[in-house]
């Protein structure tokens, strides 16, 4: 025995003592669903692409983004970003400027000429898409990436749908639209312009397709009966905005009245201002709170000098350009009721912006369809009552936004792909939402939201230059780094650091962590101190 005085045993390590046996509950790494992702109508994995943007790898961020949505530069301009409304950071200071980072990535991709990953090997199947609006483009893109041949037939002279013939240039410059459409076509999507599909069955037969995706939008302007003299100039918003795309701009005169309360009414009124109207007045029968248009758009229009007459309806329009307007008041149920109080308004033209209906003529011979409220009903798989015929966007029940349309296109593509293979697409189960109470906000440094600079007002009302400009690389990086990474590990090392028992194994960059259950006593400090709520405790079963 070669041991010092009074020593009888060899030195042993405490590793022999497996303290994991003390545990009554165990920590588990989880991925919770960030509220932004949950709110995105296009199903973008926002937290995930922000994660790449945070490290300055914008191309990886863009690639992660376009897995779900092929139109980031457009999204970054026209999306109403419900993600930001849901963002947990909003409860800390201000929501992450998701939309502006998205636009930065989209612009960066156009600028640098990034191309989509090539499609999967050919499936030998072909799908017909009717309509090259956002919904049709999205479906075509996803189907093509899955390896199917895709042909889009579009009635108009150019692709884009309402993104081109509705949304004004000052909100969506056309080179951005053209760039993102071209990239989809470059994937090998066939696009035939200037052909209106009048019979869907015939078109499918002619193209040799067993499945088709319909996305014809809603383009027929709704009318209201307004008695008017012979010479009165009454137009509808959709034709006015469509006219903006041609060489002869619509003649609206110096005093323009727009009737309606949606975003379209605002776009027309703001367009009229830019065309030289001295007065551009919106007449709306309810109050600002009840207006369907988004508040930021109302605000921008008011800043540009658009006037809004709340609680008013138009009774008739005389030859000399006078409008008779009646004051309304809201009843207890919030419905506008006439007051009998009349005033007159001078107007060179009246533009009706009262919404749009769907042109369903191409579906006349299709059996099994259900049409309700003027729109085509679809199942959870986006299929209409006729097998193989799928539909999405404005022509089905929806909120009628570009983003919803894109989301429909993606969802339909997944189901069409499964349908073509004779199976059914089953969406993976949704993770639990990473609500604010799952976070430990202590760890996040304070950082105000970067506000996108607004074009100087004067310039804005006289030109069709883009109103909101983008972020540069520095503030895009800053903005991306404001993301809390809700519910998803971002390798902050907290769990690895705070465990009193060294029971967290750090696996190295990009590989996250693992628990060493041999020693983990189940104290739960890692769960309490995880900033982003990516660990949970579960009871031990044995």
């Amino acid at each position, binding site marked *: 025995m070669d041991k010092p005085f009074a020593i009888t045993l060899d030195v042993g390590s405490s590793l022999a003592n497996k303290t994991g046996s003390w545990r009554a509950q165990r920590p588990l790494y989880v991925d919770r669903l960030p509220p932004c992702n949950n709110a995105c109508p296009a199903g973008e994995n926002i937290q995930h692409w922000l994660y790449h943007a945070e490290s300055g790898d914008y191309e990886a961020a863009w690639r992660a983004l376009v897995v779900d949505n092929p139109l980031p530069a457009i999204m970054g301009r026209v999306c109403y970003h419900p993600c930001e409304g849901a963002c947990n950071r909003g409860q800390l200071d201000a929501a992450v400027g998701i939309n502006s980072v998205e636009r930065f990535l989209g612009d960066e991709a156009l600028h640098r000429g990034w191309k989509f990953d090539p499609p999967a090997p050919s499936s030998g199947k072909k799908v017909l898409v009717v309509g090259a609006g956002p919904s049709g483009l999205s479906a075509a893109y996803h189907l093509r990436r899955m390896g199917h041949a895709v042909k889009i037939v579009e009635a108009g002279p150019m692709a884009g749908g309402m993104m081109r013939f509705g949304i004004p240039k000052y909100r969506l410059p056309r080179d951005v639209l053209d760039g993102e459409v071209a990239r989809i076509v470059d994937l090998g999507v066939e696009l035939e312009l200037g052909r209106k599909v009048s019979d869907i069955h015939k078109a499918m037969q002619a193209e040799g397709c067993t499945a088709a995706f319909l996305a014809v939008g809603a383009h027929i302007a709704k009318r209201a009966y307004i008695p008017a003299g012979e010479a009165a100039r009454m137009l509808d918003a959709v034709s006015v905005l469509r006219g903006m795309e041609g060489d002869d701009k619509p003649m609206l005169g110096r005093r323009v009245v727009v009737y309606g309360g949606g975003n379209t009414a605002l776009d027309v009124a703001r367009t009229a201002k830019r065309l030289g109207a001295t007065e551009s007045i919106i007449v709306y029968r309810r109050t600002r709170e009840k207006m369907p248009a988004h508040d930021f758009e109302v605000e921008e229009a008011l800043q540009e000098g658009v006037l809004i007459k709340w609680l008013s309806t138009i009774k008739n329009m005389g030859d000399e350009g006078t409008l008779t307007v009646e004051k309304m008041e809201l009843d207890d149920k919030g419905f506008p009721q006439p007051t009998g109080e009349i005033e007159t308004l001078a107007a060179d033209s009246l533009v009706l912006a009262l919404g749009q209906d769907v042109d369903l003529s191409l579906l006349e011979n299709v059996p099994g369809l259900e049409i309700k409220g003027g729109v085509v009903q679809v199942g959870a798989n986006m299929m209409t009552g006729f097998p193989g015929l799928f539909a999405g966007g404005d022509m089905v029940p929806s909120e009628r936004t570009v983003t919803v349309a894109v989301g429909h296109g993606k969802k339909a593509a997944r189901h069409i792909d499964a349908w073509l293979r004779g199976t059914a697409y089953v969406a993976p189960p949704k993770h639990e939402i990473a609500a604010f109470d799952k976070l430990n906000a202590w760890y*996040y440094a304070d950082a105000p939201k970067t506000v996108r600079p607004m074009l100087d007002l004067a310039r804005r009302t006289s030109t069709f230059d883009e109103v909101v400009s983008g972020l540069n690389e520095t503030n895009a990086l800053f903005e991306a780094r404001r993301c809390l990474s809700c519910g998803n590990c971002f390798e902050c090392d907290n769990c690895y650091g705070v465990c009193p028992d*060294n029971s967290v194994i750090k696996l190295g960059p990009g590989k996250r962590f693992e628990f060493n259950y041999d020693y983990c006593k189940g104290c739960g400090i890692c769960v309490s101190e995880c900033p982003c709520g990516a660990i949970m405790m579960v009871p031990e079963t044995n």
Partner: protein
Amino acid sequence: MNRHEKLMELPTQRQPVKFYQTGTFTVGNRLLPENLRSVQADIGRTNSLNSGHRACQGCGEALGARYAIDAAMRATDNQLVAVNATGCLEVFSTPYPETSWQIPWIHSLFGNAAAVASGVAAAQRVRGRPHVRVVAQGGDGGTTDIGFGCLSGMFERNDDVLYICYDNEAYMNTGVQRSSATPPGARTATTPALGREPGNVSGTGKNVPLIAMAHRIPYVATASVANLHDLELKVTTAMEFHGARYIHIHVPCPLGWGSLPADTIRIARLAVESGLFPLFEARDGHVSARTPIRRKVAVDEYLKLQKRFAHLFASPAGRERIALIQATADRNIEEFGLLEDEATRG
């Protein structure tokens, strides 16, 4: 990179150089350069106190000891010897013949750690190995009560030892008896929640960091397991000095405080944020820096998570004592300037 350069780079709340979202407060951050991350973020950290130790679930002392000794190991290029007083840290880590320590480590008695450490330092000097540095460590009982004579002697002789006290505010290893570091109002086995003034009495106790400063030793600091970056910086700074140094670390004890194991760091954070446990540094007997409070909270937030204070919430008299505790916190904030933005470290 020396410590001052490091400070200029570190995105602390005082010097927001670059925005990293987290990294100032979290242990690590994948976006931070490697050399700016904490020692604890290092995949190759010493793990001085290894797994398999017998500390309770969520032990703040085990955590604090690993934080401090790992940082000291890095600061000394692993040339470190630790001397341990009797107490939980010693008992849970070394049931003969097992040990959790992955560094040279010695235990002698409850009250003599400072003296033994002075001896070890002298021995290293005599053997011509002055680069081997010495840390002594013990609980609050071993430091502020029974070991206090040896500690004061070590200070007074300016022996080349860093003494670290892990303050869990009572004699935990023997069953939660009151020490001179037990706070007013706290229930312990020897200060039960009974009688006119339940729990520990108010108006006594002793503040060993301030007493250490009175010895005019080169470096004194307080630290908390709730602020890892601050703690590591202080240990690292301490190792830049020779002579007697003292660091007093606040370490919650779930068993003795009647708190949830998962709340250990949260409670330590509330002690700092309420002002009850001020974080500061002192050079040569003068306060040279304090760590500002980030989001001030009332002492209630801290007290109510601990059963040892539960009786204070149950009676009007208890409420009055909470008001006294609040007054102590407010006085700390005032005296140390804990809410001043300009609070800087020297």
